[in-house]
């Protein structure tokens, strides 16, 4: 087992979690912007994307593979109610999602730090 696999998906998950926080903070910042469309990050889609393997051209005479555009996981939110100014941010929805995303981030960070302290203990051999 090498150390890079010791942390499992936690390392990558932490990055996606912080990316989601960014997307949600964008929505909250634009809560009063006319015609702004709220977005969210589809965690599952991002993870699936990272597992996908694209064909790479290893020889100059290879044809480039026609792959579908990578899915960045961004989805437009479907609002519960419509608004006059075309803004689809519903602040209560965003707030609850932000709270949950923050908790998710903390959970992932805890897993990671547990992993690290586990490895430390193993190294010390106490």
């Amino acid at each position, binding site marked *: 087992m090498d150390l890079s696999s010791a942390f499992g998906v936690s390392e990558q998950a*932490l*990055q996606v979690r*912080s*990316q989601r*926080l*960014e*997307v949600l*903070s*964008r929505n*909250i*910042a*634009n*809560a*009063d*912007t*006319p015609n*702004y469309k709220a977005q969210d990050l589809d965690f599952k889609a991002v993870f699936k994307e990272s597992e996908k393997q694209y064909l790479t051209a290893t020889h100059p005479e290879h044809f480039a593979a026609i792959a579908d555009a990578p899915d960045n996981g961004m989805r437009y939110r479907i609002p519960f109610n419509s608004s006059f100014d075309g803004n689809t941010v519903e*602040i209560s929805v965003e*707030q609850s999602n*932000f*709270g949950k995303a*923050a908790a998710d*981030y*903390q959970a992932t*960070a805890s897993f*990671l*730090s*547990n992993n*690290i*302290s586990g490895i*430390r203990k193993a190294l010390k051999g106490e």
Partner: protein
Amino acid sequence: MKSLDSVFGIAGTALNAQMVRMNTTASNLANATTVANTEQDAFRAKRTVFKALVKEEYTNAAAPYLGGVKVDHVVDDPTPIRSLYDPGNPLADKDGNVYLSNVNEMQEMVEMMAASRSYQNNVEVVNTARQLMMRTLDITKS
């Protein structure tokens, strides 16, 4: 940690925009009872129009606020100006009329509350992001 960093930037742009909105409201309220000599000179309530910073050209490397918000422009409230017959007023025109501002105090109070709520929301975002950052730094101690 690029993403958590930009949370601060994005929330910062929103704090800035909401502060401008609150200042506009304050100015409107302050001028609610202003009168003028002509209809053109009468004070018109100002409204801020927000715009999302969604294009790369709005931002630069030193200011990575992509997805933030800015005050795009300030428009005058189109509500018609009311005139008041007040011949004793030194600003009255030859017919004895003065022109009042079109500020609606109720509307301004609502606007101020909305701006302050949005401001608070973004302060909360900054606080949460800060806590998460500290939490992430704690990983090194584990």
